[in-house]
């Protein structure tokens, strides 16, 4: 039995550490709700929902500089807008806010569903099963987000490797992530240099190119940073969310049958997948002034991780918190964060997740997990048989 102080010392929220992380969350919430890990140069972690929520509402105490990402996403450049503090943060964010409202995203509903149906139909046509991550969970957001952002279709096949290297291999092989990061920056440099600015198109890239802050256009470094952020934020998280939902349903046939029989529950199930199996288990800050949380002093300059994944299973907020209850009605989870840095794409991510699960259930007959070694987390293979 590992002591709580040892769990704290070794606490990590990436890679293999995620395999059994929910047991560690429970132990930490109970015995060491604010603790210190030795990983990634040392950082504090906060695991209680109310503490995370309060810290999220206090950008004057917790800065997103040098980065919300721990460890870095293959680059040291601060990513716009997530790594930017007020007052500039809101100027950057407002450029794209109008494109991510529910009313505007309604225009994507049919394209998302059509893409989901095409992918699911192809998945079924192949026979008795296959890798639902590679054939469905990953391509769906890649296609939808790439069209929205304006990434040319001929480039899409390159994207999975950049995502894998930058987001997944950064932990054990930071150099590999940096190399992919440089390739991604070069890719956007080329794309921006050849961009047709005269047209009427209204992709995300058009918006950031046309945007003005206090009467000036974004400079090249700002454009690079915004493009980099959109890429790493728009493709992977939604793929993980869809894959983890399918993972749960593949392992829990009772829930799968319940959703097939009561499709109106799928929207609630998706919120529950986000609460319990979220793609973003934690985000980092830097403490700007000496602060005390639950009796634990945190010094100015210390790095702090807000562990959403732990807070989302907090027994003080959720009844039966580790149970994935596909009909749970009260669910104010923090999978998209809270406060001024709330995930800008949350309305899109939710829409893709919901349509993705609904269409898969509609088109693919009852499926189960064919490989019990495949984990709940990440975007690697999810082998299903039906």
């Amino acid at each position, binding site marked *: 039995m590992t002591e709580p102080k040892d769990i704290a010392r070794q606490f990590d929220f990436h890679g293999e550490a995620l395999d059994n992380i929910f047991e560690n969350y429970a132990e930490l919430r109970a015995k060491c709700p604010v603790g210190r890990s030795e990983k990634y140069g040392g950082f504090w972690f906060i695991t209680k929902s109310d503490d995370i*929520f309060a810290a999220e509402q206090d950008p004057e105490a917790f800065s997103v500089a040098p980065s919300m990402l721990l460890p870095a996403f293959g680059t040291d450049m601060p990513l716009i807008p997530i790594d930017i503090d007020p007052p500039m943060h809101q100027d950057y964010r407002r450029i794209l*806010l109008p494109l991510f*409202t529910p*009313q505007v995203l309604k225009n994507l509903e049919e394209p998302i569903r059509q893409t989901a149906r095409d992918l699911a139909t192809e998945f079924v046509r192949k026979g008795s099963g296959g890798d639902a991550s590679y054939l469905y969970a990953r391509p769906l957001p890649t296609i939808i987000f790439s069209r929205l952002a304006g990434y040319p279709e001929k480039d899409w096949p390159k994207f999975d490797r950049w995502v894998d290297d930058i987001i997944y291999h950064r932990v054990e092989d930071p150099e590999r992530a940096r190399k992919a990061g440089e390739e991604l920056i070069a890719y956007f440099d080329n794309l921006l240099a050849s961009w047709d600015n005269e047209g009427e198109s209204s992709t995300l890239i058009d918006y950031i190119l046309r945007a003005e802050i206090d009467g000036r256009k974004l400079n090249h470094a700002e454009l690079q940073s915004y493009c980099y952020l959109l890429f790493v934020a728009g493709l992977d998280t939604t793929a993980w969310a869809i894959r983890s939902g399918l993972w749960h349903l593949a392992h829990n046939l009772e829930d799968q049958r319940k959703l097939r029989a009561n499709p109106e529950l799928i929207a609630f199930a998706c919120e529950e997948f986000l609460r319990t199996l979220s793609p973003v288990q934690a985000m980092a800050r830097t403490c700007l002034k000496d602060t005390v949380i639950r009796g634990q002093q945190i010094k100015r300059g210390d790095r702090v991780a807000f562990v959403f994944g732990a807070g989302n299973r907090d027994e003080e907020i959720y009844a039966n918190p580790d149970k994935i209850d596909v009909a749970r*009605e*009260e669910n*104010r989870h923090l999978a998209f964060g809270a*406060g001024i840095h709330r995930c800008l794409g949350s*309305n899109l991510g939710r829409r893709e997740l919901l349509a993705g699960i609904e269409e898969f259930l509609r088109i693919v007959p009852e499926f189960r997990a064919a490989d019990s070694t495949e984990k709940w987390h990440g975007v690697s293979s999810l082998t299903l048989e039906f």
Partner: protein
Amino acid sequence: MKVFVDPNRCQGHARCMFFAKDVFEIDDEGYAKVKVGFEMIPAELELSVRKACANCPERAISVTAS
């Protein structure tokens, strides 16, 4: 029952629209407000407004008895 959205707290999660789209609306930047004429909630919409309140990640929605 009365309902109020605190504009300083709302961050645009839009969960209220899922539970009570008759009562809330979203502005051009994604922030929620109570529709004009719905400050007092008709009895038949009270339950959905309570659900919206309970599901707001920012605790931005408050309901009061009168």
